[in-house]
Each structure stands twice: as structure tokens, then as C-alpha cells.
């Protein structure tokens, strides 16, 4: 209503009582303003998704033309033990990374939000790993987690723990990649918690203080309930991004040893690039999309339920 540019003189002078007869202005040029964004958006964000649905039903490689194979790629995916391993690993990554990121992110945010001296510096240090590339994360942690000379095993050895083969054994490789991922991903959760903590009305905590609530009581009865929506959001966002885990895996372990740290995207990557099976890779990608969509809708539903 505010940006009526050229009001017709009649309506401006005698508005009928209770009913405003403004003819809404139509800015055709608005389409042009949006088009610069919308055209690449449709070409590179939407079209490939639709194209991908088609590719998933074909056999297609870099050379040659597509051949329609119906649901063959999907039946094959369901029978492929490595697909099962990849999705199971995604779940295991979720079990390790999501609580790690959420709990530590919340703890760090609670600490920084207290406004102690140097808390600005602490905020910078906690967030910093989030801005560097997967290559940095991967290589730094391959070095830190080195079985023989890595810092982690060095300090574990100092307290009597024998050397853990973090990235070179089937038992530990997924844990090793998860540790690096928590370090990398924490920043986003941390910042979201920090923003939410600042949004808690001050009189709420003041009132609790006046009532003589201790710090643990304030945390459990005031702060955490107020943070419920953001906790739910962080958990979902992190779960989705964990299901999409790829770069760290690629840099640190190549999915190995023996597929023990593989992930859905890593397997899709191998099928497309190494095996040149674009149709099959697209079919697995579609399955991953469905899993992620279900997770997203589940979170929306749960949030609405509570509100």
C-alpha cells in the first residue's frame, strides 16, 4: 500500500467510506528485475532436477545416447550391497556428527553469550573452522589423526591410550571423518544458538534471578525451553547436511578402507565418474533426495505440532 506511485486524482480526493477503490499498480518491469536471477535459477537449479528424474530411468554414459531402461536402475540400487552400506554409513555419520555439533555448539554458545572478557575472541576461534574449505579440513585432520605421528594419538598416548588407527582401519575410519566434520560444521550451529540466546527476553532471566533460580535451574527451565525451535532446526539442518557428506570423505579416506567410510554422495560420485554409469548414479541421487525430503517434511511437521 505504501508505494502507490501515481494515484488517480478522483480516488485520491473522494475515497468512499470504508472501502478504498485503489486500482493496484502493476510493475511489469518487476518481471525483468526478477528475471536476471530467475533464468539462471531455473536453468541450473530446477531444470537439472527434472532432467535427473529422466536420466534415472535410462542407461547413459558420457559417450553415446540414453537408453530407456524403466525402473532397472532402482531395482539394481535396492539389490546393491554398497548402496546399503553407503546409506547405513550416512546414518552412522548422523549418529556421531549431529549430537557432536549440537551439544558442543550449544555449550560454546552458552559460554560466549555470558559476555565474559575475551568472549568476542572465543566467538571468532569457535567459528573459524567453518570458513575454510574441505581440502583444508581433510588434510589437516589426516595429519592430526595420523596413527604413528598424529597429535591426537600423541596426546591420547600421554594418558595411556594406545595408538588408534583413525583413518586406516574399517572400525575407526568413519569416526575419524566424523571428528573432522564436527570441527568443520560446528560454526553454523554455534552461530544459530548464539543468535537465539540473544533473542531470549532479558526480563525472563531477570525474573528467574530475582526468584533465586541457580544457574542450572535457569538453564533447564528458562533457556533450553526457549531454544527448542532452534535446537530442532539445528538438528534437522545438520542431519540433512550429514546425509550429503562428501568432500571430507573424498579428501580423507576415499570412502575406505573397504567402503567403511563411504557415503551416499561418495558412492554416487564413484558410479558416475569412475564407472561412467550416469543413469544409475542419478537413480541413487533421487533416492537420497527422497530420504532428505522426508527428513525435512518430518521436521516441518514436528515444529507445527508444537507451535
Amino acid at each position, binding site marked *: 500500500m505504501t*508505494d502507490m*506511485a501515481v494515484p488517480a486524482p478522483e480516488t485520491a480526493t473522494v475515497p468512499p467510506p470504508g472501502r478504498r477503490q485503489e486500482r*493496484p*499498480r502493476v*510493475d511489469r*518491469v*518487476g*518481471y525483468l*528485475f*526478477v528475471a*536476471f*536471477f530467475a*533464468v*539462471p*535459477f*531455473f*536453468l*541450473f*537449479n530446477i531444470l*537439472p532436477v527434472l532432467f*535427473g528424474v529422466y*536420466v534415472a530411468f535410462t542407461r*547413459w554414459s*558420457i559417450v553415446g545416447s540414453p537408453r530407456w531402461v524403466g525402473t532397472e536402475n532402482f531395482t539394481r540400487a535396492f539389490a546393491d550391497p554398497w548402496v546399503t552400506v553407503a546409506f547405513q554409513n550416512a546414518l552412522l555419520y548422523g549418529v556421531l556428527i549431529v549430537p557432536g555439533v549440537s551439544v558442543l555448539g550449544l555449550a560454546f554458545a552458552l559460554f560466549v553469550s555470558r559476555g*565474559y572478557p*575475551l568472549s568476542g575472541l*572465543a566467538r*571468532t*576461534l*569457535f*567459528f*573459524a*573452522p567453518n*570458513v*575454510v*574449505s574441505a*581440502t*583444508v579440513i*581433510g*588434510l*589437516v*585432520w589426516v*595429519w*592430526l589423526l*595420523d596413527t604413528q*605421528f598424529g*597429535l591426537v594419538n600423541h596426546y591420547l598416548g600421554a594418558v595411556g591410550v594406545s595408538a588408534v588407527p583413525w583413518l586406516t582401519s574399517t572400525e575407526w575410519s568413519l569416526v575419524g571423518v566424523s571428528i573432522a566434520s564436527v*570441527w568443520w560444521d560446528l560454526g553454523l550451529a554455534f*552461530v*544459530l544458538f548464539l*543468535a537465539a540466546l540473544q533473542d531470549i527476553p532479558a526480563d525472563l532471566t531477570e525474573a528467574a534471578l530475582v526468584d533465586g533460580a541457580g544457574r542450572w535451574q535457569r538453564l533447564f527451565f528458562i533457556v533450553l525451553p526457549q531454544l527448542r525451535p*532452534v535446537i530442532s532446526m539445528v538438528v534437522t539442518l545438520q542431519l540433512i547436511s550429514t546425509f550429503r557428506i562428501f*568432500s571430507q570423505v573424498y579428501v580423507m579416506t576415499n570412502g575406505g578402507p573397504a567402503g567403511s567410510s563411504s557415503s551416499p*554422495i561418495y558412492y*554416487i560420485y564413484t558410479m*558416475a565418474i569412475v564407472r561412467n554409469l550416469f543413469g544409475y*548414479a542419478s537413480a541413487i*541421487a533421487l533416492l*537420497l533426495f527422497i530420504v*532428505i525430503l522426508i527428513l525435512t517434511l518430518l521436521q516441518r511437521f514436528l515444529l507445527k505440532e508444537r507451535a
Partner: protein
Amino acid sequence: MTALLTRVRRYMDEHRFTLLDLPIWLVGMAVAFAWFAPFVWMVSTSLKYPEDVMTAQIEWLPNRITFDNYVKVFEYPVVRWAFNSLVQAGVATSLSVLFGAMAGYGLARMRFPGRDGLFALFLASLMIPTEVSIIPMLLGFIKMGWASSYQALILPSIGNVFAVYIFRQFFLGFPAEIEEAARVDGAGPFRLFFLIALPLARAPAIAAAVILFTLNWNNFLWPLLVTFDESMKTLPVGIAAFTPVVGTRTQLEGFSVAMAAVTILSVPSLALFFLLQRYFIQGISQGSIKS
């Protein structure tokens, strides 16, 4: 001395800093420094002689330093990779900020049929993980003969919804009087946008630019897939090849060269973050909480 003590006292009173807070503060700060320590270790290792790297003794500060590892990194085409990264991240970021600003302005300040539907569609598309479309997109680029090209590196990242969102939010709160005045002066929509609205949108522009630049600079999966040519790799993809698979030269060189390479790679994003962290943190929390 007593003056200092009273100042500390007053500070503690003002900030409700009790004796119980002291251990919390000490532990918290120690954790914060430990959290950053891997970066220190990275730089420290990159300055060591290879024979000083794989040692039983931990040397946080190297006894003797060398820049040989950095020289060795430049035996690879890192300058070319850095140039590619700069072109890719620079162009993609500029275009997505500009287009995002235009679309955000159009969606916030203009009225046309389908406007809100379009915006809802843009937001809904955030639920689609990019990885779903990446294999078919790769196929498309290969078929068009665009693999290993700058357009392949740049085009897919310019339709960025985050930029649209952050500008729309800003322009929704934009004072209508300014627009009115400009219209009365006879300014058309483009002059209005480029000469008046955009220059006033500095804060969202910087926030979008730093966040998207970091995102584009760090982009990994797509450049990895679409560059078959060694000379068209971006810095993160090129340097990822320093991964020490047992038996390769990195293993023999004992991580010092790899750490020099990742130090070079992390400096631009860390520097940008340290200088502009206010924009980073505000932009990210605004962008994700509301959507």
C-alpha cells in the same frame, strides 16, 4: 596495584562475575584456543624441515624454520589454480549478489501477479539438495562441450536464493519516501534501483558478498566433477591431490608440503572472516533462522 584490584572488583560486580565464573571462564577460553589449535599446528608443520615433521617429540613452535615447503607447493600449477578459483568465485559472487539484489528489490518493492508465488518457489527450492541435480547437470555440460571451462565453473552458482532472500528482507524495510521523491524527480525503475536503492543496501551487499565468496571459494564437489583438465582445476580441488595415500610423495615428504599447501588455501577465507566477521555471523544467522 590496589587501583587495579578495585577496577577488577568493579568489573566483576558490573558483569555479575563471581568466583564460580573464574573456572568456567578459564576452561572455556582453553577450549576456544584448543579449537583453533589445528590451524596453529598446520602453519607450524608447514614451516618445518621434512625430517622434523614425523617426530616423537611434539614441537608446537619449530626450532628451525624453512620456507622450502612453500617453494615445493609452487612446483604444482597452484598459481593457475588460484587464478581459476579467483575468477570462479569472483565472477559467480558478483553476479549472484547483483542479480540477487535486483530480484530482492523487485520482490520487495514492486507488485506484479505471481510475485509471492515466485518467492515461495525460490524458498521451496532450498529443500532440494544440490547433489541431486549435480550428476544430470554434469551430463548436460559434458554434452554441450562445456566441461573444464570457466562457464562450467561459474554458471551453476549464480542463481543463489540466499542472496535474493537477504536483499528482499532489507528492501522490505526500505523507506518509501525515498522512492517517492525519486519518482517525482522523474527517475525510472532502473535509475531508482542503481543510483538510489543499491548504494543504500551496503550492509546486505557486504554480508551476501562475503558469505557467497567463501562458499564459492570453498566449493568442492562441482569443480571436482566438471574439471577434467589439470589446468582448469580450482585451488581446493587441485590441492586435495596432496592427500597422503600411503606410498605417494606426500607421505615421503611427511606432511610438511601438504600443510604449506592448505595454509595457502585457507589464508584468503580466514583473512576475509577475521576482517568482516560481523557480516558473516549476522548474515548467516539472519539467512538461516528466518528461512
